[in-house]
Every structure is written in C-alpha cells, then in structure tokens.
C-alpha cells in the first residue's frame, strides 16, 4: 500500500491481522500515532518467544 495518497490514521484494527508478515505503508500522507496494537500480533503468534 506504499506511495498511494492514503490519509488519516492507521487504524488500531490492523493489530487483528494475525497473518500479516509485512506492513508497508510508506510514502503516503498518514497522520496520527502508530497504533500500539501492532504489538498484539506477538501474543497471537504460534511461535513462542
């Protein structure tokens, strides 16, 4: 999803995409904060730390 004209913020719900291996949103016009829910994906991992 890089280099689009995406605006607005990154929704917290991205943290529910448990199959996601790469999040590529560079080169947009996104504002707001990086959702801490991205870190939730760790808890759902089948690979223990």
């Amino acid at each position, binding site marked *: 999803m890089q280099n689009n004209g995406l605006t607005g913020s990154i929704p917290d719900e991205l943290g529910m995409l448990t199959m996601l291996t*790469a999040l590529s949103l*560079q080169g*947009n016009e996104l504002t707001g*904060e990086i959702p*801490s829910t*991205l*870190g*939730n994906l*760790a808890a759902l991992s089948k690979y223990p730390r």
Partner: protein
Amino acid sequence: MPLQQISLSSNQLSGRIPGEIFFLPSLQDVNLSTNRISGSLPTEIGGASRLDSLSLSNNILEGSIVPQVGFLTDLKKLDLSKNNFENELPTQLLQLTKLMWLDIEGNAGISGQIPKEISRLTDLTYLSLSNTTIRSPIPSQYSALTKLEQLNIANTQVGGYIPSELGSLTALTGLNLSGSRFRKSIPTFLGSFTRLSEF
C-alpha cells in the same frame, strides 16, 4: 509467521514509538524514517532480538540512545540520523558486531568521545558521525575497519591529527572530514585510497 517488517517511512506520523512493537518475535525490519515521531527510544527496543534493520532517521526523537540497543545483536543497519538525540553514544553499541551501517549524523546533542572499541565493528561499510558535537581525535583503531566504504566526520568538534593508520582503509570510496577541527596538512596516505571518488 507473525509480522516481520514494518515500513511506515515518509508519512506524517506523530506521537511516540509504541514499545509494544518490539515484542513481535519475528520482527526483522523497522523503517519509521521521515515522519514527525517524537519522544524517546522505548527501552522495550531491546526485546526485538531478531531485528536486522532499524531506520528512525529524520524525525524529532530525543533523549539518550538507550543502552538496550546493545541487545539487538543481529542488527546490520542502525540509522538514527537527523533527530534530536543527545548525550554520549552508549558503549553497548559496541556489542553490535554484525553492524554494516551506522548513521548517527545530524544529532547536534550527541557528544562525548569516539570510542576506540569501535574497531570491533569490523563489518562496517558506512559510518557517519557528522553534525554532532562529538569531540576527541579519530582513534587510530579505525584502521581495523577495513571494509569501510564511507566515513563522514564533518562538522563536529573532532580535532587533532588525522591518524596515518587511516591509510589502511583501502575500501574507502567516500571520506568527508569537512568543517571539523583537524590540524596539519592533508596526509600523504590519502594516496592509498585508490577507490576514493569523493573527498
């Protein structure tokens, strides 16, 4: 596989870096450069033990470069350039022996000495400390960095003599020492930099 790569560069993101992302067990690549991210480096950063590349350049991050960075022993690229980081570089940086790319430039508050032990980072190909307030001469131990292709120590408080040992850096293609406080003449060992295209 859980999230391995987070690329959010070149947006207008603000706020702090959420420490939670560094608990992602497979995280290898984080690029948050060119945003408006503020605050300090979260200490949780040390949890991302598989991190290979971390780029936070061109934001408004502040505070110290936390010693927990030293836990990222797989790190090959660390780019903290163009922020407001301050204080001395943590000695724990010297544990990152796989580092190939270290860019601290453009953090006017980064001060202190260039540690002699930087010679442990023998895989370095790119090292930039320009536009910081680092002082002290260039340690002769830099000569151990035989893979170094680009060395930037411009616009710093670094002074003294340019050590002749730098002549062993034969892989250099770029050397920028402008605007610092070196004394004496241009050293003759520059003749050994046969690959140099920029000086």
